[in-house]
């Protein structure tokens, strides 16, 4: 390589790495980044996507639910409450996210999985930790610098006459990616810490955070490997985070025992049927069964019939060997429990047809129509009751 080129490369490398030392904002409540900065640019672009989010059909607009979740966010965010705008998004996966401009997304899959206010609060506190720690902008700058440095390396490798230069580049690439993920894990740890500390300060039981992670880990371990994963795909090292949180909770001299009041259940209850139906639609049945077990084992469970119904739905839709029978058992069990939906009777009818039991099917269908005289699918059900069972029922 020419000496001139070499010195050009070196100065370019210095110029590229030089931009990484930008200071973070002080972040007083109500602060905005200056317009000409990289962060100002991100805020402007995010404002556009926030407008799209505001008119998304996936947005849950129920006033009472939004008021409740917002109230909890405000308790955790304190004086930064006004800087954060919460959007509840109808997606059946456990997730919540925080954008640097204060847009917080909470997915319904996370609301469904939190057992009480303390667990939901821990998740919200974790996200607020990302916000206050300015993790997005840190990650953006880090990504930018890494990508710039890699581009230069790639050019040098491609231009080098040495046959091994390409291999050397691959090694550098992997190291760079690994360091990006590591960076992100540090942010997760820091945010866990923030959620934990705020929970303790607000008098919640400090054990609820790790209990939620533990529950999610159990779900993750039951995962159908062919199906897309949950939040853990991007948030590795969960066991380590769990252990850290548990150790800290146990080391506390004084632990609050609050898991929150009845408002949590009151705000979420109207949506459980919809969210559980969405959950079953994910078709990751082993995970859904683990979730249903956990919801069922809650001390204050009031909708055992509904949970049993959705267990039946899992089996009816999965149709693994023996599932037809399991579905019938689950629906029948639901009928003895409080809170089962009328659809239990109808779907029990469908399940009986699959095992060629016309008589029981028709009895269940008749009960369904009696319970729901104005059912939308009355004509269909009445027709089915006249129709002989086929060898392979759908």
């Amino acid at each position, binding site marked *: 390589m020419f000496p001139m*080129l070499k010195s*050009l*490369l070196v100065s*370019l490398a210095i*110029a*590229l790495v030089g931009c990484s030392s930008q200071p973070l904002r002080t972040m007083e409540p109500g602060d905005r980044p200056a*317009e*000409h900065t*990289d962060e*100002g*640019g*991100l*805020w*402007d*672009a995010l404002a*556009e996507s926030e407008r799209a989010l*505001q*008119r*998304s059909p996936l*947005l849950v*607009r129920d006033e009472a639910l939004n008021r409740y979740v917002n109230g909890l966010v405000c308790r955790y965010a304190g004086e930064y409450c006004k800087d954060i705008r919460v959007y509840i998004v109808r997606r059946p996966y456990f997730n919540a996210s925080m954008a640097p401009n204060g847009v917080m997304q909470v997915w319904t899959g996370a609301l469904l999985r939190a057992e009480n206010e303390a667990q939901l609060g821990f998740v919200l506190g974790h996200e607020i930790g990302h916000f206050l720690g300015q993790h997005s902008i840190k990650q953006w700058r880090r*990504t*930018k610098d890494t*990508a*710039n440095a*890699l*581009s*230069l390396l*790639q*050019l040098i490798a*491609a*231009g080098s006459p040495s046959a091994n230069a390409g291999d050397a580049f691959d090694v550098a690439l992997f190291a760079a990616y690994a360091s990006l993920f590591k960076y992100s894990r540090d942010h997760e740890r820091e945010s866990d810490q923030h959620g934990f500390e705020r929970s303790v300060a607000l008098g919640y039981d400090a054990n609820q955070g790790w209990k939620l992670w533990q529950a999610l880990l159990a779900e993750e371990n039951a995962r159908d490997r062919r199906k897309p994963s949950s939040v853990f795909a991007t948030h590795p090292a969960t066991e380590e985070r769990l252990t850290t949180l548990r150790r800290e909770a146990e080391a506390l001299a004084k632990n609050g025992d609050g898991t929150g009041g009845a408002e949590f259940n009151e705000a979420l209850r109207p949506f459980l049927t919809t969210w559980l139906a969405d959950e079953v639609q994910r078709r990751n049945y082993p995970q859904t069964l683990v979730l249903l077990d956990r919801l069922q084992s809650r001390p204050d469970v009031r909708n055992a019939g509904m949970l049993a119904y959705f267990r039946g739905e899992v089996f009816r839709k999965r149709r693994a060997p023996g599932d037809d029978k399991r579905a019938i058992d689950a629906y029948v069990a639901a009928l003895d429990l409080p809170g089962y939906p009328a659809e239990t009777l109808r779907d029990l009818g469908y399940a009986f047809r699959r095992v060629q039991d016309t008589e029981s099917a028709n009895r269940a269908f008749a009960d369904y129509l009696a319970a729901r005289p104005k059912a939308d699918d009355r004509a269909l059900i009445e027709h089915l009751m006249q129709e002989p069972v086929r060898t392979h029922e759908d």
Partner: protein
Amino acid sequence: MQAYVSGAGMRRWGNFGRALFVLCALVLSACSSTHVRTDAEFDVARDLGGKSVVLVEPSIQLFEMQASGLMEPRADWTRAARDRLPAAINVILAERQANLKPEYRVPAELPADAKPRQVLALNEAVINTIFTHSYLHVPLPTRGASRRKPLSWTLGPGVSTIREQTGADYMLTVIVRDSYTSTGRAALMILAAALQVGVLQGGQQFGVATLVDLRTGDVVWFNVLSDSLGDLRDDEGAQATATKLLKGLPL
């Protein structure tokens, strides 16, 4: 950073080859194109004498292309361009004697399911669909493989809500994403050319403009602009971009 041209064959061309390569690299990355489609009936009639037009919620974003090719949004440039480009469009429309209505934005206090908001969301979806099926290589089974067919898309008569709000006969939509080569990127581009390892893409201007008939909802005119020279950071550049963006606009 993909698609490197192999540099091995170039070496034996000597200094002349090297100079030629650098020149080609710079020329190749500088080109401009527009692709207009119009509705068949509209193409025949094309009589818009005395009709009024409203520009709705122009979506404009400017980025700085980092050395790696990563796009960083620039709020200061974007804000200036959001004033400049609509102003330049207005100048052109005024020159063509179109009756211009003031730019329309859905009032912030309207709920998400308000009709004007929904019509604009539908408009966005239709723009994406037209772009995918009439410009990218994704033919629709119902429309056949020809990408050059006239437009036959409509938002339906529900668009009248925008006419009621604005009093306009036609609604003009403009979407522009524009990126500019940073110093680091420029250095890397020159370096890539000097090392003869390939041609790196610099900043690009990309835009879509459509005209919708606010009585029928038909999309009557659609233009896609792709340009590596356009610049929305000054008035002159904005005027040039507006001219290309409105190319073939039947007014």
